[in-house]
């Protein structure tokens, strides 16, 4: 398959050339270059070749660094000298401190998650036959703009579980493991006639229930929007010897009807949890059916009190407020991971392919388990690649802008803020303080400076 060849691309020799591999072909021409010198062009010609790039880099990149340092020492109008005042603001303003805290969370969490996932994916793709398809899918977000990725995740994180897939999945999983239906504000019918009474936020029968005698549990105050669409007209369970009964909405639409009795048109309340209690201990639980009936199978004979625990009367689980102030940064980091995991995976997979198989086989023959092989041989041999991925991610998280800007709704942007976004907001997005904006830009430059030096040193070492 053509696609397979393409994704194997990084392994072919030409890749190593374009990849600037340290020990690769780069060495050959360098050493053989010396004799060329006499034939080579004059330095003047070299300057002609370099000139367009030098002008652009000089004016658009180098000059702005110098100008920003200068500008950061002045106030918003650009006329009053404030010294390091703008830098002091960065570290004293409350909103700024939130911003810096968020950047810290980003720098600590995102690179670790991305690198770990990339490593897991790279290892696992070696174990499936459709690895090419998998790599394509995971790598695809790299081609998509962060703007589009932001729109994609705004949709994913919609709070309404009927619209946002994240909460739809959460509620489905949640409802699989616990009562799916909640009836907030509903309550047992009170009064002397009623067979039940409220207790501890739930409901409990006044009399002990006997097997063979269906128990009626009338509920009132079920709001129209809460009534499940699958609720059926209530009916008592057909007799039998087991403990059984009905939980229903004791309210006849349009008036009429007898309290505490199941009238025509009254509906059962499905999904209620009913507990059978004896001597203060829960002896069994049942869940009501669509017509509100329930039945305890296999309870030993005896007299039980039936109880509807409080959980029935709490609102149903609706997932998380992803885009609220608390979860916004983790939610955006989730989108970042979605975008960058493919990058980490492809880079690490290429590193994995370069590991000599002999080393792994030798360890296996010596009786090492797969985990030991992975932990003691694969990971150490991969560490240069892992470092590259990790550092790239740190630089990316320091500069993160688009995703925060797009995913965080404007009301929570102060809680989601990061330095790169704040720089834009302060200087162009309404703040109109280019002194502080310049200081933030310099702050950002200082943050990436260690990695700049690292790159230069590594390049010198590799090309020495």
């Amino acid at each position, binding site marked *: 398959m053509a696609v397979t060849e393409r994704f194997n691309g990084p392994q072919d020799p030409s890749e190593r050339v374009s990849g600037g591999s340290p020990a690769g072909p780069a060495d050959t021409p360098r050493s053989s270059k010396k004799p060329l010198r006499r034939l080579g062009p004059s330095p003047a010609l070299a300057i002609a070749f*370099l000139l367009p790039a030098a002008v652009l880099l000089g004016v658009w990149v180098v000059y702005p660094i110098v100008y920003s340092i200068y500008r950061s020492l002045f106030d918003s109008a650009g006329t009053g000298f404030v010294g390091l005042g703008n830098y002091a603001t960065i570290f004293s303003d409350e909103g700024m401190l939130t911003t810096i805290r968020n950047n810290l969370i980003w720098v600590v969490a995102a690179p670790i998650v991305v690198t770990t996932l990339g490593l897991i994916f790279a290892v696992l793709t070696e174990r499936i036959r459709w690895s090419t398809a998998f790599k394509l899918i995971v790598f695809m977000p790299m081609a998509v703009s962060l703007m589009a990725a932001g729109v*994609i995740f705004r949709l994913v994180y919609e709070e309404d579980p009927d619209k946002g897939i994240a909460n739809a999945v959460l509620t489905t999983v949640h409802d699989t493991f616990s009562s799916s239906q909640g009836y907030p504000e509903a309550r047992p019918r009170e009064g002397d006639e009623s067979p039940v009474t409220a207790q501890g936020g739930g409901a409990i029968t006044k009399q002990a229930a006997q097997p063979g005698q269906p128990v009626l549990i009338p509920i009132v105050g079920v709001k129209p929007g809460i009534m499940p669409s699958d609720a059926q007209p209530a009916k008592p369970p057909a007799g039998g010897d087991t403990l059984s009964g009905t939980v229903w909405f004791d309210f006849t639409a349009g008036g009429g009807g007898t309290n505490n009795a199941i009238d025509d048109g009254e509906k059962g309340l499905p999904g209620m949890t009913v507990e059978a209690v004896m001597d203060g201990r829960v002896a069994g639980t049942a869940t009501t059916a669509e017509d509100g009936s329930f039945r305890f199978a296999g309870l030993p004979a005896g007299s039980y009190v039936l109880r509807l625990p409080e959980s029935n009367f709490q609102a149903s689980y609706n997932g998380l407020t992803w885009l609220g102030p608390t979860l916004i940064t983790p939610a955006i980091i989730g989108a970042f991971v979605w975008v960058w995991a493919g990058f980490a995976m492809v880079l690490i997979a290429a590193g994995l392919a370069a590991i000599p198989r002999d080393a792994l086989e030798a360890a296996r023959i010596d009786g090492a388990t797969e985990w030991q092989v992975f932990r003691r041989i694969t990971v150490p041999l991969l560490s240069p690649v892992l470092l590259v991925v990790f550092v790239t991610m740190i630089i990316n998280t320091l500069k993160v802008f688009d995703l925060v800007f797009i995913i965080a709704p404007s009301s929570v942007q102060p809680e989601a803020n990061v330095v790169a976004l704040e720089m834009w907001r302060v200087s162009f997005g309404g703040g109109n303080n280019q002194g502080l904006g310049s200081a933030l830009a310099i702050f950002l430059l200082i943050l990436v400076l260690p990695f700049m030096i690292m790159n230069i040193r590594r390049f010198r070492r590799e090309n020495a």
Partner: protein
Amino acid sequence: MTTVSAPAPVGLEAGAPPRSLAGRIVDRLGSGVVQVVMVLLGLFWLVPTLGLLVVSLRSVQVNSAEGWWTIFTKPAELTIENYSNLLASGFTASFWNTVAITVPTTILVIGIAAMAAYAFAWMEFPGRDTLFLVVVGLLIVPIQIALIPIASFYGGIGIFGSIPGVVLFHVAFGLPFAIFLLRNFFVGIPASLLEAARMDGASEWKIFASVVFPLGKPAIASLGIFQFLWVWNDMLIALVFANPGSQPMTKALQSQMRQFGSNVDILSSGAFMSLIIPLVLFFAFQRYFVQGMMAGSVK
């Protein structure tokens, strides 16, 4: 074609030493678990984009009433009305602005960087190695550093808000990576080829145009695709330097974000339109894309 005898030890266990029966069963189970986990992960990566596509193909009313996944039971709800509304709303202009920014930038970056890379790789001049280290250092300069100075510079020369202003900014910030990538590739061209050309008395321009540039095609393709996507997908530079008349799609869409709920029709279809060309390019040239990315990972 006939009945299959004992399962051959192919696939991931190929070449591994024989295992005990128990070990093989564990492997099989493990591989089953891996398959399931990978399918789930694949879905995790695929589903968000699929959601965007479906939302963009359903009407506002339907989207506000139910989740996009209900489409599997009601495929009849699909409509292209969002797209026709989008095209009628003038979004087309920002599409062409994106093209008008991206294509010249890509060509200029390739041309200017190739010349500089050739000088760095094959010409002798004082301070060459130091200058190249400066380029390596510039690789990760945040573009935020230049927003304020260049905005006032553009204001001074009157190109603020124009497409050329946006293009020049992109070109400048694309150059360090481009020079780095191409120089490392050009250095690997066999010296004998250049030597022969120089012996024949070919000028440096001729060597550059007819030897180095053609030989550098794989790296230039990687650079081209990478640069194209980078500029096509940019939002920050457009946000600052483009005006409503010159704005690319990313900025046009961003201006609709404030009312996300009511603009979901425009946003979803617009976002999908903005990503369709990058996706097509990605699938067509993924090899070059991956190579460019790997080469640039020194960033």
